[in-house]
Each structure stands twice: as C-alpha cells, then as structure tokens.
C-alpha cells in the first residue's frame, strides 16, 4: 500500500510517502489511521484532529469507512487551499 502525506501532515510525519503493508485487519481508512498513529509520535500528531484531515484512495475523496487494500494509493492531507482569494 502506497501512503502519501501532504502539507502539515507531511511535515509532522516527516516524510512525503512510504510503502507499507498493514495487517489484514486494517480493512478501512479509519483502522488504517489508528494503525498509523501507533507507529510513532509524528503520526499521532498528524492524525490528532481528524476534522482537519482529508483522505483520498486512488486519487478520489473518500470517507473514513472506505475500504483499503494492498495496492491502493492512500493519501492524507488538510482541507485544500488552492485557487485564490
């Protein structure tokens, strides 16, 4: 599973992407987040307030009950701030 982190999530976790193989019971986004938070304080800080975390699986926005599986590209990032004024 390819994991991507953007903006301050990337800064808190300390990397932009990584390849991980979570155990089989990590079957959806919510459980993936719990599993990541247990990996270290950077992850715990990044996922401390899930109201400001957005998730995309295979480049589409998904809710936290969305399934994840081996081979997926899962991205975590803050609410977007592009465009302009």
């Amino acid at each position, binding site marked *: 599973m390819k994991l*991507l982190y*953007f*903006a*301050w999530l990337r800064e808190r976790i300390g990397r932009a992407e990584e390849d991980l193989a979570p155990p089989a019971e990590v079957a959806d986004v919510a459980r993936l987040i719990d599993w990541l938070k247990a990996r270290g304080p950077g992850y715990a800080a990044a996922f401390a307030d899930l109201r400001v975390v957005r998730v*995309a699986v295979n*480049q*589409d*926005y998904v809710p936290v009950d969305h399934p994840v599986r081996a081979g997926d590209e899962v*991205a975590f*990032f*803050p*609410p*977007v*701030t*592009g*465009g*302009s*004024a």
Partner: protein
Amino acid sequence: MIRVQTEDFDVGAELKALTAGNTAIGGVALFVGLVRDMAGGQAVGAMTLEHYPGMTERQLEKIEAEARARWPLDATLIVHRHGRLEPGDQIVLVICASAHREAALEACAFLIDWLKTKAPFWKSEATPEGPRWVEARAEDDHAAARWQR
C-alpha cells in the same frame, strides 16, 4: 482543457487560443486568481503552493467535465500553478466560453468555487513569523455547496 504547471500563463494568449475560429461563441467569462499581499489581516510575502500530482489533474478533469455537462459550453480551460509565487503573481485561470453569457458566467463561478474546495492544493505563506499553512475558509465550503443538487 486543464493544465497544472509552475510557469506563469498569458491570459490574452489563452483566450485567443481557446476562442479562435469558433464564431458560435458569444460570451467568454474568465477568472484570474492572484497572490494577495495580505491574508487574514497579516502581511504575506512569497507563498509556496504544494499539490498532489496525479490527483490534481484527475480532479480538475472531473470538475471540468461536470461544468460541461451542466452548461452549454463551447470551450473551457483551467490552468493552476504550483510552486513558489510572489504577491501579484497569477495563481489560477478559468475560462468558459458559450453562445450565451449566462452559461459562461455561471460555469466560471462554479469552477472557481469547486477549485477552492476540491482541487488538492495547499498554500504555505511566508509571514514575518515564518512559514504558515493557510487554513481553509468555511465560506469556501458554503460557496461550493450552493452548486450542490
């Protein structure tokens, strides 16, 4: 057509290229986003715009297709820059051309509202206290929500 790039864009040239030879077009609405030197009452210097390559293009194409499904548009263009930008620099360009001005104007407003809430870009502003990630505005979600149906 959509483009994600670090280079600046030439609004006049983009407009000409998009409308050239199509005399069915009666109205063209454009929106150009610029880097402001003030944000939330605080002076801002340069900013850096990070994005999610791959997802950005995918989301912009979906948004553009949605606009073309809702309104009778002859031509559309979305250009969004990333990387380092200074106050006064152009960030984003939306162009919608149609036989009718209402379609062009509404589609342009729709696209810029959606870009603000759905296109995966994140701004980091240089402030006197150091770089700061810009927080999303609740008003932007409200602006995008008025297009829901």
